[in-house]
């Protein structure tokens, strides 16, 4: 396409030339060009190959609405060439064609396509034999799809900023209706945001001769305080949250009210060979001419159904483009003023006529025009007209997907021959051509009305309802004086009756009229089914140019009126958006203990444990575990959940939550407890320590802390006892000093007597250790003499260092999570969630001793446990050893006999260096839950014989623990 002489409203800056590359070749452009306008100016008319048939495709709308203009820019596939500003040096490559755009080997599917790729072809063909699917998939993936994603992380570097914005009114669409709505709302004090997907605000007036008017309006809106976002697509409406993508920013806007001023989309005709490059929308041709000073063709034919097409013909003619003919579907078209103006300029206007076929080799060369019946058949021999541009205008479809996503409805209005929004949800308004106001003044008025309505009662706007309703009424009366322009609806499909030539209903997905007919024939005869079967409207343009056309065609094929066929709802996103834009910044909320820096310094391997980053080991898990048995070890257990339960009825609350009695606990004493659901299942476990008459300190599992806090406060909310729960998990650090030398270490730096008589097993003491205020719990998860020392997180580093220093000559060594797991397994101490699941009761988990059914209290889970106590569990949790020394995989199954049925599962398994044995825990049938019973473990290819041990493997009587 050649460049026209400078145009008054052109966006290009001819004083600033630049170059970029397309498929490696250098292309000249001006600043302000889009990739597409620059390529077209350089004579590149084919921008892409189509999805299925790999047919050459050119520019259609000039504003990035269709899939024809998708290109790859650098490492970003799916970039809309006609919506993306060109930048110096930008590397642009084509998509979906191999080896080149000019010669695409896959276009063979087009020539023999009738045989190979009817609709449903993949579903029907590649289903058998199933085992070949991976092979089919490989080939199909290569043949279909658009663009290529870079594989390495380094190639995927870009940054998106996420920005929350709250406002009173969000206006979507920056044409005359949207701008006047935003201005009206802002002038009444509302906090307003307006977004528009075009590179400049102004909408269609930018290329329809009203640029000055909308620019002035935009300036006034900005002055009134409206936040204006251009180049910003509203991706979707999510329960009032609108995501707006503006280059490297994703705005997440929460508005009290919304105004959809998203406009209407000019529709194409459907006729044989309607996808040839050179067939464009009239608005697209005008846009190229006005904004980018491109001659969209040299000899044009215009096909239309209303005055807007005639006006486009006049506008193109004024640019010096020869208009070979105008086919206006209206039989009375010649009476229209624009037709008279065209006729007087020597342009032939054919009333009642439509385009019934296009032809050309790789590009449009001629069109056939003929008078047509209402269902689109040529009444006469077609008139052949040579041309290189066909500008079509087959009516407007409201751009209503956001409205529909918001819960609005649209219906076909037979009297107006168009879809119209009918039901608007609360707080959602619509203005402009989406409501059928094509006339500029009417659109502006409807915008003002919507702005007034949307700002009424907003937080920051004044009320003044009386005067505003008068103002509204006056505006409404003025709006009602505007009438819609007359039009003749386009047939679903116009054709000359000759064989051959594909007529596309959906260019994105290469869906033809024939495909739709086949779908109906096979029974997919309602639009939602036909959509899913043929994928019509499911391509990147989300039905912008095919939703109305396919609905109309389906209506015709099934003899159902269009108002009953309805429209499909376009799902978000409104434009193709890189997943990286939606992904968020790459930071994962991670909890770290106050001792995290010490673990790093000690070279710990740090791993995820729930939402914590934990020291898994310090390089020698076996050695670390052995140190706990022989001397002493120190482990960071700050991840334990810690709750303070306080108040006159705190004991009562805990009695109702635990299956044992808590209220009888003496201050300074500790009791182990499990938490149950009302179905008697174990949900968590931990210790309860009484600090004073009204205060309890509850510990939970590391992963259960939040759930337990919520569980407690939930029942508290229901029972309304006088108690309060404070979660101190994150602020209080804890470390477990365990091993035969633990007492000696502690004695060196504690300010109180830690002797075995004064600080007994299950005692709790508050005092200073190394000058730091601590709570010490004498408990033994790892099975040796141990002290769980709780202290303020900010002092934890000092305490950790002091304990290691005091224990240096006593062999104290830090140990991680993995050695702790070995140690606790030796004691058969369960890990809730690892050894238990949602079926486990204290009885089946061999922990009947934690349940006190003789307590007078009702407690959560009591009734279910009373029932469970009467029955034998289906499965029991027991320990086992594997004499061969092999360690089964956790999750391996237990078999009734070698090769027999599955009767259980291994939950934990480790090799114990201390016991020099392979040990584990497993669920087995009650009949096998006795010491010395033999079980068979099937673990992938291995079959292991194991022996049941119901008592702890290490120190079964707890002598070490109590020492």
């Amino acid at each position, binding site marked *: 396409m050649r460049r026209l002489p400078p145009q008054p409203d052109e966006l290009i800056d001819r004083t600033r030339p630049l170059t970029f590359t397309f498929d490696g070749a250098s292309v000249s452009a001006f600043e302000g060009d889009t990739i597409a306008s620059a390529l077209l100016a350089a004579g590149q008319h084919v921008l892409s190959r189509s999805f299925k048939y790999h047919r050459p495709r050119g520019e259609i709308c000039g504003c990035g609405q269709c899939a024809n203009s998708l290109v790859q820019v650098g490492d970003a596939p799916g970039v809309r060439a006609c919506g993306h500003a060109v930048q110096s040096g930008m590397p642009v490559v084509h998509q979906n064609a191999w080896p080149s755009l000019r010669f695409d080997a896959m276009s063979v599917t087009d020539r023999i396509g009738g045989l190979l790729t009817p609709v449903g072809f993949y579903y029907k063909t590649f289903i058998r034999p199933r085992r070949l699917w991976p092979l089919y998939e490989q080939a199909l993936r290569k043949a279909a799809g658009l663009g290529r994603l870079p594989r390495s992380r380094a190639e995927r570097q870009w940054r998106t900023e*996420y920005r929350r914005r709250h406002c009173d009114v969000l206006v979507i669409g920056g044409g005359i209706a949207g701008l006047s709505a935003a201005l009206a709302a802002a002038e009444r004090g509302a906090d307003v945001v307006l977004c528009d997907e075009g590179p400049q605000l102004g909408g269609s007036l930018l290329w329809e001769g009203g640029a000055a008017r909308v620019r002035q309006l935009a300036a006034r809106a900005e002055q009134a305080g409206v936040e204006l976002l251009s180049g910003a697509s509203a991706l979707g409406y999510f329960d009032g949250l609108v995501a707006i993508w503006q280059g490297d920013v994703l705005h997440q806007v929460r508005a009290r009210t919304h105004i959809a001023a998203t406009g209407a989309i000019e529709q194409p005709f459907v006729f044989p060979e309607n996808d040839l490059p050179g067939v464009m929308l009239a608005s697209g041709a005008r846009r190229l001419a006005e904004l980018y000073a491109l001659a969209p063709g040299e000899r044009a034919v215009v096909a239309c159904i209303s005055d807007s097409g005639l006006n486009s013909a006049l506008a193109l003619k004024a640019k010096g483009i020869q208009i070979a003919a105008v086919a206006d579907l209206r039989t009375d078209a010649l009476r229209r003023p624009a037709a008279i103006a065209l006729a007087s300029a020597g342009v032939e206007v054919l009333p009642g006529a439509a385009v019934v076929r296009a032809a050309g080799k790789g590009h449009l060369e001629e069109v056939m025009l003929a008078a047509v019946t209402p269902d689109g058949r040529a009444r006469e021999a077609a008139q052949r007209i040579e041309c290189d541009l066909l500008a079509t205008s087959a009516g407007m479809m409201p751009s209503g997907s956001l409205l529909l996503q918001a819960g609005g409805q649209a219906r076909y209005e037979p009297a107006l021959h168009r879809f119209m929004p009918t039901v608007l949800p609360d707080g959602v308004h619509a203005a402009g051509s989406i409501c059928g106001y094509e006339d500029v003044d009417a659109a502006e008025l409807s915008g003002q009305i919507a702005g007034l309505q949307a700002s009424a009662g907003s937080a920051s706007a004044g009320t003044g309802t009386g005067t505003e309703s008068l103002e509204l009424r006056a505006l409404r009366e003025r709006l009602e004086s505007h009438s819609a322009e007359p039009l003749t609806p386009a047939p679903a499909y116009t054709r000359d009756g000759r064989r051959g030539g594909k007529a596309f209903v959906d260019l994105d997905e290469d869906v033809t009229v024939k495909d739709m007919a086949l779908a109906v024939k096979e029974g997919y005869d309602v639009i939602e089914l036909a959509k899913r079967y043929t994928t019509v409207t499911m391509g990147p343009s989300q039905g912008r140019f095919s939703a109305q056309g396919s609905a109309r065609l389906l209506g015709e094929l099934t003899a159902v009126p269009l108002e009953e066929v309805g429209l499909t709802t376009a799902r978000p996103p409104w434009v193709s958006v890189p997943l990286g834009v939606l992904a968020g910044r790459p930071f994962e909320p*991670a909890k770290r203990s106050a001792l995290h820096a010490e673990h790093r310094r000690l070279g710990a391997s740090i791993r995820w444990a729930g939402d914590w980053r934990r020291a898994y080991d310090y390089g020698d898990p076996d050695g670390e575990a052995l140190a706990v048995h022989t001397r002493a070890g120190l482990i960071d257990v700050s991840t334990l959940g810690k709750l303070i339960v306080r108040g006159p009825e705190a004991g009562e609350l805990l009695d109702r939550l635990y299956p044992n009695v808590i209220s009888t606990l003496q201050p300074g004493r500790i009791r182990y407890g499990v938490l149950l659901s009302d179905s008697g299942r174990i949900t968590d476990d931990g210790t309860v320590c009484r600090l004073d008459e009204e205060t309890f300190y509850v510990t939970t599992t590391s992963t259960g802390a939040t759930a337990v806090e919520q569980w407690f406060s939930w029942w508290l909310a229901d029972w309304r006892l006088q108690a309060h729960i404070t979660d101190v998990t994150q602020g209080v650090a804890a470390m477990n000093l365990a091993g035969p030398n633990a007492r000696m270490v502690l004695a060196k730096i504690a300010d109180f007597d830690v002797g075995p008589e004064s600080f007994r097993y299950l005692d709790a003491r508050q005092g200073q250790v190394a000058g730091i205020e601590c709570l010490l719990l004498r408990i033994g998860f790892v099975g040796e003499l141990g002290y769980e020392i709780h202290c303020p997180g900010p002092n934890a580093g000092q305490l950790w260092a002091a304990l290691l220093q005091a224990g240096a000559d006593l062999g104290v060594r830090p140990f991680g999570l993995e050695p702790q797991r070995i140690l606790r397994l030796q004691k058969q101490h369960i890990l809730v969630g690892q050894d238990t699941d949602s079926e486990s009761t204290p009885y089946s988990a061999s922990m009947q001793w934690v349940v006190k059914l003789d307590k007078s209290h009702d407690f959560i889970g009591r009734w279910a446990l009373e029932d469970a106590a009467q029955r034998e569990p289906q499965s029991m949790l027991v320990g086992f050893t594997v004499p061969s020394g092999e360690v089964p995989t956790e999750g391996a199954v237990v078999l009734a006999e070698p090769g027999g049925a599955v009767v259980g599962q291994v939950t934990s398994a480790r090799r114990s260096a201390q016991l020099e044995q392979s040990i584990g825990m497993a669920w087995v049938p009650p009949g096998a839950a006795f010491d010395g019973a033999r079980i068979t473990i099937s673990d992938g290819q291995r079959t292991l014989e194991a022996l049941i041990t119901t008592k702890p493997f290490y120190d079964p009587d707890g002598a070490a623990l109590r020492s």
Partner: protein
Amino acid sequence: MRFLTAGAGARSPLAAPLREAGATLQTLDGWQVATHFGDPALERRICGESVGWADVSHRRKHEIQGDPAHLEGARPERGLWFRLTPERALLLDAMTPPEATGVHAIDITIQLAALSLAGPLARDLLARFCALDLRPETSPPGTLMPGSVARTPGYVLCETRDRYLVLFGAAYGEYIWTVVSDAGAHLGGRPVGLDALRAGELPVSA
């Protein structure tokens, strides 16, 4: 329950990233606090022009619990008082908790890490990782908003138009610092010390 209150030599939950960012530490109320990061003058300017973020985890926080009828009676004269629920209030910047019948106080200073965001872009910075409506119309100075901060439970207090206090779980210190630094640096901000905050119009601690 003295083990809930930090003693001498207390290290902030943000100590590791502070050290990495080159903080100069001093002792304040028994806590090691970052007074500056090498260039106090630049840090003051940042707080006037874009946004600086400063660790103020040492600021005293108490949770006051009790019968709804008694709770308001426990409100002390000093410190910032926010009613969270009918039974709970958050008291900021009071060195000693109030004593009253029917209520009790728990020192939760160590539970919540705290960042002060100071500067004209403070609200823009928050909008990068927080969905709370912090517009002056809805959240004027003095408003405490409990809610999600960078996908973790937290509180945002608008102290002045240009200064916000963000409270969040101590264990999330390093994570939140990463999130704030990432977004803040992109806005032209940087970490600042308490010296830069003190230059502002608000006292750091009551």
